[in-house]
Every structure is written in C-alpha cells, then in structure tokens.
C-alpha cells in the first residue's frame, strides 16, 4: 500500500469514527462556548472590558478546548490495539502520525472555527478585529494540534493521562498564545497584523513538519 493511500485511509477512518460519535466530538466546542458565557459573569458585562480581554480569552479558550480532545488521540487506538497495526504497517510511521494530527485538527479545531462567529459576538469583538481573530485561530490551531499530538504520544501508556498532557503541552503553547492574542489585539487597535500572522504561519509549518517525526519516535518508545 502506498504511503499516500495509507495516510488517506487512516484519515478517513478517524473522521468516520469521529462522525459516528459526533456528540463526543462536539464536547470541546461546547466547553469553549460555555467558557465564553461564564467569563462575563466573572468580569462583568461591560462591552469595553470584554473587548479588552477578548484576545486573550479567545486564545486561552482555544488552547483549553484543544487539550480536551488530545487524550483520546492515540489512547483510543491503543485500547482497541489498532495502534499496533499502525506501528507494524509497512509505511513510515511519521506519515501516519501526520494523518492523526490532521484528523485531530479537523475534528477539534474546525468545530471551534465554525463556532467562531458566536464566540466573537459573545466577546463583543469589533468588526475590525473579527477577521483577524478568525485568521489567528485558523493559523494557531494547527500548531496546537501538532504539539498536542506529541504530548498524547508520550503519554499513550499512561492511564488517565489527560492532566499530564496539559502539564507537558501548555508551556509549549506559549508562543502560539502570544502571537495569536497579539494579532487580535493589534487588529483592535487598527495596527498591522502581518508580523503576528507570519510568526503563526512559521510556527504552524515548523510544528507540522517536526511533530509527526517526534510522535513516531514517542509511539515506538512506548510500544511494549
């Protein structure tokens, strides 16, 4: 089986599994929306105050909702032993882990992007910052999925590794958080956001190209 064919098949299978249990797949985005609903109760509903914290809250919400779906990324395959098949497959493991990352992005980031209009409204994001926020989320989420997959692969043999993944992965999310929030903030102040967008794209490319390799090594290390 060719590498491309195997990767596409794996992606198709993961998407199908996600679609079959679509209520589970929607939990992270529901969590994100709930977070956006809770914040005004904590800080007050003044539109200006919400606008000030919107960039940070949008990014932090994205980080946290990404984390929620990470623990299932490889553990589910390990539980039904299909992970062993991936390890034994006659194609480079990194190609398969890349598929897993893409599948994770499609099932966890895309719902958040679809809910973005709602989230932006809840945070009272001005029209000027609307597209910048969408762009920031669009470009930051591949980095989050790619780095998160490393955490998921490292903890695949740990029972209930969800909290541990958060501890491993959140410090590595700092650059994406900084540049994402800064892009939205600059757009709110009518400043150019190209610098932040370039950095987010660079981070995405770097993490998407290195992370599948690291995930492959991590899975092999954890194989019994």
């Amino acid at each position, binding site marked *: 089986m060719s590498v491309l064919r195997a990767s596409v098949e794996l992606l198709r299978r993961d998407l199908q599994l996600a679609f079959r249990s679509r209520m589970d797949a929607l939990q992270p985005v529901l969590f994100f929306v709930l977070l956006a609903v809770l914040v005004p109760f904590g800080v007050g509903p003044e539109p200006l105050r919400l606008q000030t914290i919107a960039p940070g809250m949008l990014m932090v919400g994205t980080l946290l909702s990404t984390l929620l779906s990470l623990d299932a990324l490889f553990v589910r395959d390990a539980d039904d032993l299909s992970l062993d098949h991936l390890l034994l497959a006659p194609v480079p493991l990194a190609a398969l882990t890349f598929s897993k990352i893409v599948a994770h992005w499609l099932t966890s980031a895309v719902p958040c992007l679809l809910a973005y209009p709602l989230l932006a409204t809840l945070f009272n994001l001005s029209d000027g910052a609307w597209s910048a926020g969408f762009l920031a989320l669009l470009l930051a989420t591949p980095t989050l999925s790619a780095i998160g997959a*490393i955490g998921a692969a*490292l*903890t695949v*043999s*740990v029972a209930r*590794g969800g909290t*541990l993944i958060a*501890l*491993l992965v*959140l*410090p*590595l999310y*700092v*650059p994406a958080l*900084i*540049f994402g929030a*800064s892009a939205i903030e600059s757009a709110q102040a009518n400043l150019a956001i190209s610098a932040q967008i370039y*950095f987010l794209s660079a*981070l995405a490319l770097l993490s998407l190209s*290195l992370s599948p390799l*690291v995930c492959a*090594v*991590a899975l092999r*290390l*954890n194989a019994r």
Partner: protein
Amino acid sequence: MNRIVLYYHKLSSPEYFYRFASAVLPWVLLPCVACFAIGLYAGLVLSPPDYQQGDTVRIMYIHVPAAWMSLFIYVVMAFAGLLAVVWHTKIAEWTAMACAPIGAMFTAVTLITGSLWGRPTWGTYWAWDARLTAELVLLFLYLGVIALYHAINDSRQAARAASLLALVGLVNIPIIHFSVKWWNTLHQGASVRLTGASSIHESMLWPLLIMALATNLYFVVSLLNRLRVKILEAESGKAWVQALESNHHE
C-alpha cells in the same frame, strides 16, 4: 578501537561508572565546598554594596549563577536525553533523569531570589519581566519532564519518553524566549529593568565567577551522587553490588 569510543563504552557500563563516580566524587566535593565558602564570603561580606541598589545587589551572587545553571542543566539533560533516545544507554537515561530535579531546583532558586530582589528594587515580588517569565516557563518544562518520568510504570521506558520531551523542550526554549521577549516589548508597563549597567566592576565580578564555579561543581556532585544511588537501586540484584555490600559489612 578509538580510545574515546572505548572510554564511552566503558563508562556506559553501570559497574564501571559506579566505581568511576565514587572515585571522582571527593575530588569534586572538596573544591565545591571551598568555592561556596570563598564565593559566599566574598559576595556577601567582602564585595562593595552597589551605589544604587545597596546591599540588595548581593542577591545577584546566588541569583545569576542559579539562572545560568538552570539553562545549562537543561542542555545537559537534553544531550543525555538524545543519547538515551538514540542508543538506549542506561547511564544516559539515568543522567537525563537525574538532571531534571537539579535543574528544577536551580530554576526555583532563580525565581525565588529574583522575586526577593524585585521586592526592594521594583517594589513588587513579581513583575512580568521577559526573563522572569521565560524562567517560569522553563520551570514548567522541567516539571513536565519529572511528571512524565514518574507517570510511566516501566522506569526505562519512562526515562526515554521524558528524554524525548526534554529534546522537544530544547527546540522550543529559543522560540519561547524570543516570543516572550517580543510580548514583553509590546506590553511595556512601568519601565522595569534588570540591572541598568551591563558592565560589572571587577570587585563584583570575581565573587560572581567563583559562585558560578561553585554551582557547577555542586551540579556535578549532585549528579554523581544521584547516579550512584540509581545504579545501586537498579543493579541491586547483580553480583557486583552484593559483593560491594558484603565488603561493606565486614
């Protein structure tokens, strides 16, 4: 065989390494204690107070070497981690894992002394200064390595996984440092600076260098000791350890 390669192979035998570490230890421990005694006396008593910061500047003699060590030990840990991930050498695995708590300790010392220095100088225990913030992220990277090591049941598997995490962290540290610096210049609050002058007077430099040497030696002492304990623990069933023990009792 090349002599260096031969030496590497010899050192990767736990028994040989144990004897090597035990033999070397006193020769590192004595200079370590001496350097700490001289460095602390010179820094805390002999060196002049700063013309602006007064006696507060003496915190620097602990803060700065600890900050250097926090980064240096991470690099050592990641290098040992590389050997562990690629060649599955036991000693490399144990070295990487022994580095993590020492490095975390130095990072914590850096943060604590930094905040103690910040109180009289900046008027607050914590400012979101770029270097302090990056150091805080470094502490969490260390804690992540330690947590992962303790979470996996098989200790060798755990050491390799945590070593890989240390390598990932090493790639990320420059990116994190850079982005935190960038973030800090955007959010310039009350203009807070670490020491204004970049040049340092000779009377303050030499105690600082002695302290830097002392912390380095302390790292070696701590590392060798941790490795000796780990080797005895892991090899407790082996004949040479039991021979060692019976010698000890006689």
